[in-house]
C-alpha cells in the first residue's frame, strides 16, 4: 500500500517524514531502536552518525527496502507501509544511492526513463515486446524539469562519457521525473570535487526553494553545517539528538555522534626530515599503459599514468590529492607491482635501503616487496585489506605470510608452516595496541565495525615499524572516534622517520596531514604544494582539471 502526496491548502501541513518509535533487528543486532524524528516539509535535513549507527537502516526503511519490526513511518501525514522502492517512489520518496544506479552504455534520456518509460500512442495496448517508448514526450518532460530546477544534462550523451557530478545530476533528475517530492541522498559528496560539491549544494538549495524536502546522509560535518536546516544524530541504533543547524557546531555534533568530546582537527606540526634526506621512495617518469594480455595489442589503450615523478623522504608525509579515478590507484598498484603483467610501464620506481631493489625493478614482485620494510593500507579495506571470513589472528599475517618470524619450527625451507603461537601472540598484541574492539582475536573480521577493521589493518602494518608506508583513504568509512586515533598513529610513524605516501579523496585529510601535497588529474601530477603554499581553492581547481600555471607542466 502506498500513499499519495497530500494536496492540502491547510497552513498546518503535516511533516514530510515522521518516524515514530521505529525498531529494526537483524539477528542479534539491533540496527534501529525506538527511532523517532520528524523532517519538516521543504527543509534540508541531515542524518549524521558513525558507521553502523543506524542511519542506513533507517533510510532503507523510509525507502521501502526494509520494513520496520516495530513502529510507524508517516509520509506527508499518511501511514506508509512500503513493500518495495516502487511503493516509495509512488509515495513521492526517492533515493540517490552512493553508488549510482545508471547503465553506463545507455543514453542519459534512456537512463532517466528506465523503469518508468512513457509508452507511445497505441503501442501501450500491445504485448510488452512490441511497446515503444515515447522518447519525444519524455524529452519534453525532462527538459522542462531540468529547466525548472537548473539541472541541465546532455540527454543524448552516453552516461559513461560523463563526469561523476553530471551522473549525480542525472540521478536526481531521474527522481524528479518520477515526481518525487522527498529526496534522500546517501553520502552525495564522497565522489565529487569541491567545485562539483558547490554546484550540488546550489541545486539542492534550489530544490528546497521549489518546495522539495531533502534528507542527506553524510559524514562530513562541515557540509552538514553549510547545507542543512535540521540535524538528527544517530548513535548505536538510537537517535541521540535532534538540533537546529543554526544552533549547533561541528564539535557538538561530533560529541553526540561518539558519546564523548572529540578533538576534530588534529594539530599536525611539520615533520622533521630524516638526517639522510635522500628519498626512500622515488618514482621517475613513470608512464603506465594497460596491456591487453590476450591479444598483446596495446596501441589504442590510453595511459593511466603519464610521466609521474615524485619522491618521498624519511620523516615526511606526501599527500596525493585528486578526485577518485585519476590515476591514484594505478600509482599505488604500480609501486606495489600488483598485476604487473597487465600493464606496460616505462620509467623507474626505486625503494632505497632495501635489498629488494638490488635486482632492479624488472625483478621486483609484490611478494618480494612485502618482505621489505613496507606498510600497506590499501584503498578497499574489504576487498584488499582483509579476509573477512578469517579471524584477526589470520589477518595479522596477511601480507607477511612469507616472513620467517611467522613460521613454526617444523617448517621445511620450501614448505613453511605457520606458527600458531607466534601468530596468536602477534594478533593479541595488535588487537591490544591498536584498540581493536571487540578484542577477541578469533572473531571473524567481517563482524568488526569499519573503524575496527581499519585499526586491525593499521595495527598489522605499523606494528613492524615500516620505513615506507603507502596509505590509501585511511579514514574512509571509519567512525569519527577512530579518525583521531588513526591519524595520530600515522603522524607518529612519520615522526619516527617513516616515509609516508598518503592517498585520499578527502581534501581536508590531505591538507591536515601532508607536509607536501601532489595533485593528480587524468593520470598526471598537475600540481605540487608544500604545507605552507597549499591553497584549498587552487588545489580544488587542479583536481577538477582546471589549468593553473605550473612551471614545466604537461
Amino acid at each position: 500500500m502506498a500513499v499519495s502526496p497530500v494536496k492540502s491548502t491547510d497552513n498546518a501541513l503535516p511533516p514530510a517524514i515522521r518516524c515514530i518509535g521505529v525498531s529494526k533487528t537483524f539477528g542479534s543486532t539491533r540496527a534501529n531502536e525506538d527511532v523517532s524524528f520528524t523532517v519538516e516539509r521543504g527543509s534540508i535535513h541531515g542524518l549524521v552518525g558513525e558507521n553502523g549507527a543506524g542511519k542506513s537502516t533507517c533510510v532503507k526503511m523510509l525507502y521501502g527496502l526494509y520494513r520496520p519490526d516495530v513502529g510507524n513511518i508517516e509520509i506527508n501525514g499518511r501511514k506508509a507501509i512500503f513493500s518495495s522502492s516502487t511503493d516509495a517512489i509512488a509515495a513521492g520518496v526517492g533515493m540517490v544511492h552512493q553508488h549510482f544506479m545508471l547503465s553506463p552504455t545507455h543514453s542519459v534520456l534512456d537512463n532517466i526513463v528506465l523503469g518508468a518509460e512513457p509508452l507511445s500512442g497505441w503501442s501501450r495496448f500491445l504485448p510488452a515486446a512490441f511497446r515503444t517508448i515515447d522518447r519525444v514526450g519524455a524529452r519534453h518532460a525532462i527538459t522542462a524539469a531540468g529547466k525548472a530546477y537548473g539541472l541541465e544534462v546532455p540527454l543524448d550523451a552516453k552516461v559513461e562519457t560523463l563526469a561523476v557530478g553530471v551522473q549525480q545530476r542525472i540521478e536526481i533528475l531521474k527522481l524528479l521525473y518520477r515526481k518525487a517530492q522527498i529526496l534522500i541522498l546517501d553520502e552525495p559528496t564522497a565522489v565529487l570535487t569541491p567545485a562539483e560539491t558547490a554546484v550540488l549544494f546550489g541545486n539542492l538549495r534550489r530544490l528546497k526553494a521549489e518546495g522539495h524536502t531533502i534528507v542527506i546522509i553524510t559524514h562530513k560535518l562541515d557540509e552538514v553545517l553549510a547545507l542543512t536546516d535540521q540535524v538528527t544524530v544517530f548513535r548505536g541504533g538510537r537517535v541521540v539528538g535532534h538540533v537546529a543547524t543554526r544552533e549547533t557546531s561541528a564539535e557538538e555534533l561530533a560529541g553526540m555522534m561518539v558519546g564523548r568530546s572529540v578533538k576534530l582537527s588534529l594539530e599536525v606540526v611539520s615533520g622533521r626530515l630524516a638526517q639522510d634526506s635522500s628519498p626512500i621512495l622515488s618514482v621517475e617518469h613513470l608512464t603506465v599503459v594497460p596491456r591487453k594480455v590476450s591479444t598483446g595489442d596495446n596501441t589504442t589503450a590510453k595511459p593511466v599514468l603519464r610521466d609521474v615523478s615524485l619522491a618521498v623522504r624519511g620523516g615526511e608525509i606526501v599527500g596525493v590529492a585528486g578526485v577518485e579515478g585519476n590515476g591514484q590507484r594505478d600509482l599505488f598498484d604500480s609501486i606495489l607491482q600488483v598485476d604487473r603483467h597487465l600493464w606496460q610501464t616505462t620509467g623507474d620506481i626505486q625503494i632505497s635501503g632495501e635489498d629488494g631493489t638490488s635486482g632492479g625493478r624488472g625483478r621486483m614482485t609484490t611478494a618480494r616487496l612485502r618482505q621489505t620494510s613496507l606498510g600497506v593500507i590499501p584503498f578497499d579495506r574489504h576487498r584488499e585489506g582483509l579476509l573477512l571470513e578469517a579471524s584477526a589472528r589470520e589477518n595479522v599475517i596477511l601480507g607477511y605470510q612469507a616472513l620467517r618470524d611467522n613460521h613454526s619450527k617444523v617448517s621445511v625451507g620450501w614448505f613453511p608452516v605457520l606458527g600458531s603461537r607466534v601468530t596468536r601472540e602477534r594478533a593479541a598484541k595488535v588487537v591490544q595496541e591498536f584498540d581493536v574492539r571487540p578484542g577477541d582475536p578469533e572473531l571473524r573480521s567481517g563482524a568488526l565495525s569499519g573503524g575496527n577493521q581499519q585499526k586491525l589493518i593499521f595495527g598489522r602494518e605499523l606494528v613492524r615499524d615500516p620505513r615506507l608506508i603507502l596509505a590509501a583513504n585511511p579514514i574512509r568509512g571509519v567512525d569519527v572516534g577512530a579518525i583521531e586515533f588513526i591519524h595520530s598513529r600515522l603522524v607518529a610513524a612519520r615522526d619516527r622517520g617513516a616515509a609516508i605516501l598518503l592517498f585520499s579523496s578527502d581534501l581536508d585529510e590531505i591538507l591536515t596531514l601532508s607536509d607536501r601535497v601532489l595533485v593528480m588529474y587524468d593520470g598526471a601530477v598537475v600540481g605540487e604544494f608544500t604545507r605552507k603554499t597549499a591553497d584549498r581553492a587552487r588545489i580544488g581547481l587542479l583536481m577538477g582539471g582546471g589549468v593553473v600555471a605550473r612551471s614545466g607542466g604537461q
Partner: protein
Amino acid sequence: MISGAASNSGGILRQTLLELLRALVAVAAGLLLGASLTAIAGENPLNILAILFRSAFGTPWDFGMSLFYATPLIFTGLSVAIAFRAGLFNIGAEGQLTLGALAAAVVGVTATGVAAPWSLFLAVLAAMSAGFLWGGIAGVLKATRGSHEVITTIMLNFVAAGIASFVTLEMFRNTETQNPETLPVAASFALKPLTMFEGAPTTVAFFWGIAAAGVVAFLLFKSVWGFGVRAVGQSEPAALVAGINVRRVQITAMAVAGAVAGLAGLGEVLGSAGRFRLGFSADYGFMGIAVALLARGRPFAVILAAILFGALHKGAADLDFETENVTRDLAVVLQASVIIMVCADGVWDAIRDGLRRRRSTAIRAESAG
C-alpha cells in the same frame, strides 16, 4: 535460531555445532522428501527409511559395504574441497581419479618385482602423480590463459576417459575375459579385505582416506601454502596486495586437488577388482562435489559426508530387493533429493527469516494490542 538471537558472539565450538545441526537438518529433510516420493509408488515411506538404515548399518558386512562405497568419495570430496578453498570449481575429479586408478593399475601390472610395502608406496605415488598432472593442466590453463576451470576440467574428463580406453584395450588388455579391463595387478600390490567387516570388500584404503583428510586439513589450515590458497579463495585482490602469487596458487591448488582425487580408485583397483576396469567409477568424481558441499569444504566433515553418501548408495541397493515398487532408480532420486536439500542453502535462510518475521509480527501485534 531463537537461541542464536539471544547471545551475539558464539565460540568456534558453538559455530561448529550449529553447522553440524544445519547439515543434519538438510540431510533429514532430503531423506523425508525422497521417502515421501516413494509413497506415490505405493510404499510406506517410514518402511523405506527403515530398510535404508538397516541395509546400510545393519550388520558389520552392511557397514563395511557402506564404507567401501564411501572410500572413493572421501578422496573426491577432499579434492573438490581443496579447489573450493582456492575459489575454484573442480568438476574434473572424475577424470583425475580415472587416470590415477589407471596409473596405479599399470604400475601394478608392470612392476611385478617390487615387494609389499614399497609396491603400495609406488602405486600411491603413481596414482597421485597422474592426478596431479591432470589437475595441474586445468590449473595452468586457468592461470596463464584465463580458461574457466569448469570448462577445461569437463573436457579433460573426456580426454581422460579416452586415454583410459586406449591404455586398457590396446596396451594392457586382459585377454582371458570378455570385459574391458586390464590384466590383474601383481600379488604384492593387492589390498586384502579387512576381516572385521565379515566379507565386505572394504580395505585399508578407507583409512588412507581418513589420513588424507588429516593431511589436507594440515595443508589448508597450517601451512603457508594453504594460507595462500584460502586467501585467494576469499579475496583475490587481498591476495594480490599481500604478495601472494595468485596464479601459482591456482595451479598448485588444482594440481593438489587432482593428486588427492587420483587416489580415489585405489580401493577398487588394488582391492576388490584387482585390476582397472573401464567405467568402474559410479560417478565418484561428481558425487564428490555433493560431498564437499555438504561438508562445506571442511576436510574432516568430508569423511562424515562421504560415509553418508556411501550408506545411501548401499542402502539403496537393497530397496530394489526388499520392496515391490521401489527400483534402483528411485534410490537415485533419494540421493538426489538429499543433495538438493544440502545445496539449498537459501532455503534454510528463508525459513529462519520467516520465523523471525513471524516472531517480530507477533511482538508488533502485542505492542499494538
